[in-house]
């Protein structure tokens, strides 16, 4: 299996704060990689760095063979990104938003593609509602749909389940696991450890901008350790 992305000494400072500190990390094709960490540990900054939304202070990152610093647009053309905050344009309807994203991504069969997502995530009755009037959960479904609309090979998703009801959470988790089994790679940021334990194939723990652990879920299971206990121990020791 080849690496879908690789970072070397990736660092991002905001003034005196080291949001990401000298991170060298790689993820292989087909993995469902969970980046776990407490609030403010650097998870979202990592996603932004890897997708060229912000520039690193130091270090390099290559995503699907593309240098992120040199060609951030090229990276975002290839990957799907689901940001932590769901903020689709206020005055477009849910359906118009997916068509708008499809146009930016130069996609064909927009109608068919968007209807698939409205049906799968069960919000067909909301497709003509303005985004600003949608509930947070529905906005999250919409952002999930735009992430996968162009059928990318690699997606970055930041806390994708937090506002969803248990029925949709199940559907989303199944979708993510199927996506990964079919060769897609997922970089999944969360602090909900139960979800990570259930669906991830490998994990990384980030704390104060530094990766303090990297390994597979199989390793953890071999050690007969619960993710929660392991996570708390690692963070305490760091």
């Amino acid at each position, binding site marked *: 299996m080849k690496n879908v992305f690789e970072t070397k000494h990736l660092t991002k400072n905001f003034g005196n704060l080291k949001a990401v500190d000298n991170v060298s990390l790689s993820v292989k094709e087909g993995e469902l990689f969970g980046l776990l960490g407490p609030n403010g540990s650097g998870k979202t900054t990592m996603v932004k760095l890897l997708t060229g*939304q912000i520039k690193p202070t130091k270090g390099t990152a290559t995503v699907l063979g593309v240098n992120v610093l040199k060609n951030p647009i*090229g990276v975002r053309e290839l990957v799907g990104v689901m*940001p932590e905050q769901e903020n689709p344009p206020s005055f477009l309807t849910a359906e118009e938003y997916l*068509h708008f994203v499809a*146009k*930016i991504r130069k996609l064909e069969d927009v109608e068919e593609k968007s209807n698939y997502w409205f049906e799968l995530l069960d919000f067909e009755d909301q497709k003509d509602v*303005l985004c600003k*009037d949608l509930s947070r959960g529905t906005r999250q479904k919409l952002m999930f749909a735009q992430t996968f609309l162009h059928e990318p090979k690699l997606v970055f998703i930041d806390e994708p389940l937090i506002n969803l009801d248990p029925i949709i959470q199940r559907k989303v988790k199944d979708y993510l696991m199927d996506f990964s089994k079919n060769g897609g790679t997922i970089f999944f940021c969360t602090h909900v450890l139960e979800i990570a334990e259930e669906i991830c194939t490998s994990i990384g723990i980030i704390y104060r901008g530094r990766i303090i652990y990297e390994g597979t879920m199989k390793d953890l299971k071999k050690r007969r350790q619960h993710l929660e206990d392991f996570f708390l121990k690692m963070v305490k020791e760091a």
Partner: protein
Amino acid sequence: MFEILKSMMKEEWRSHSTMFGSLMFFLFPVVISIFAFIGTLFLPVLENMLATDQIAILVHYLFVLFGLSVGAFGLFGREVMNRRFGQASMIAYSSRTLPISEREIFLNFFIKDVTYYFLLWILPFVIGFAAASPFISINLSYSGILLTTLTLSFLIGLSISFFFSTIYVHSFKLLVSILLLAVFLEILASNFFYINLLESLPTLSFFFVPSIKKIILSLSIILTLSSFSIIFMKVDYPEKKRRFKNSLGTLANKLRFSKYSFFIVKDFLDLKRSEGGVGKIIFSFLFPLAILWLLLSVFLKILPFSDFTVIFAVFLGVISSSMYNWLTEFDLFTAYSFLPVKVSTVIKSKLSSYVLINSISLIILILVTLTGGNFYYFLPAVLSFLAVSSYSLAVTVYLTGLYPSILLYNAKIFLLYFLLMSPILLALIFLSLFNPFYLFVSPLLAFPSFYLFKKSFTKWDSWNQPSF
């Protein structure tokens, strides 16, 4: 009551100082004072062309105009803040989570806004004037009078704007009827009763001949209009879901000549579907323009060499560039940052929307020429309008990117904006006073405009986008 106000004041300070640093926000009123100081020193020169009374009229109406523009923000301010700060993240939204009525919140918000504008604009302006007064032998007591009359003029403009916007949210037809009635009364008053409406502004007559009656009259106007707005304000909770048929593709198809058609349609839908709808155009563009038209019609009677259409065209060019602000108010780049879109692409799409929307200004210019009946200088007027609007837009985009309404409060950026704009405007106005045909040189502004646009795209693409 005062706790809410105090917290709102802190919130306003912190939101601005977080955006570009406390110092640059703090220096903003200092820059205003310096401008007012320099402007006052030039009064003796200006008095060679205009009478003192005319200058007083100009300054007072500028503050009425300012109040009108600020009030227009009330029309769509809530949605802009929702977009920028998220639902319920500011005290203005506390009525949903705390036991405070929407009216109480609005009243505090109104007082906070007035205090901020007073501290940022009016007070520094008068301080600048007072500091320069001894150098040109103006009695210092005028500063005190000016502080009172300018504050009241601003408040009159603000309350007029709130009054009309309150009527607008209840009934657009009623608003149009009231505006038509106002125009009819103005024509009646000036043509049959020979009342000069421009000079009947109570704050202005107080400036000329101070009397308590005029202060009471000014305060009555402000209190009546503001109370009406607060009593009849429409409380609009976002509980009702608004539904629309998908019109993105159909409309974009009509604009397929532009590669930004989908972005332009999105801008159009933002303006149409957001609070205030077309009302935003009336309050923040046509109202100031109407006052400009009124002022120029008076002043140009005493400047025999000038042509109304040409001077109006130059100012129209500057005011029309403010439409770019509307186009950026409903969009945050964070909504695009995870998609394969460059900042410059979004800016270019806004510029395309601007070109289309700017046809309103061109129509206004044609209407003004038709009303005046003087077509002789129409061509230089159109050319100067196009040149000035492109140039002022280029300056705005270069200095503020996608955030004009925020970054212009950065003292350094404001100063640069002023320095890049004022020499050009003064040069064009002076040229037009000698001969309006000299404005055939105005298309030369295309070169700096093009250069600034080009530099802007590179500049904003390489900038780490903030989250405001």
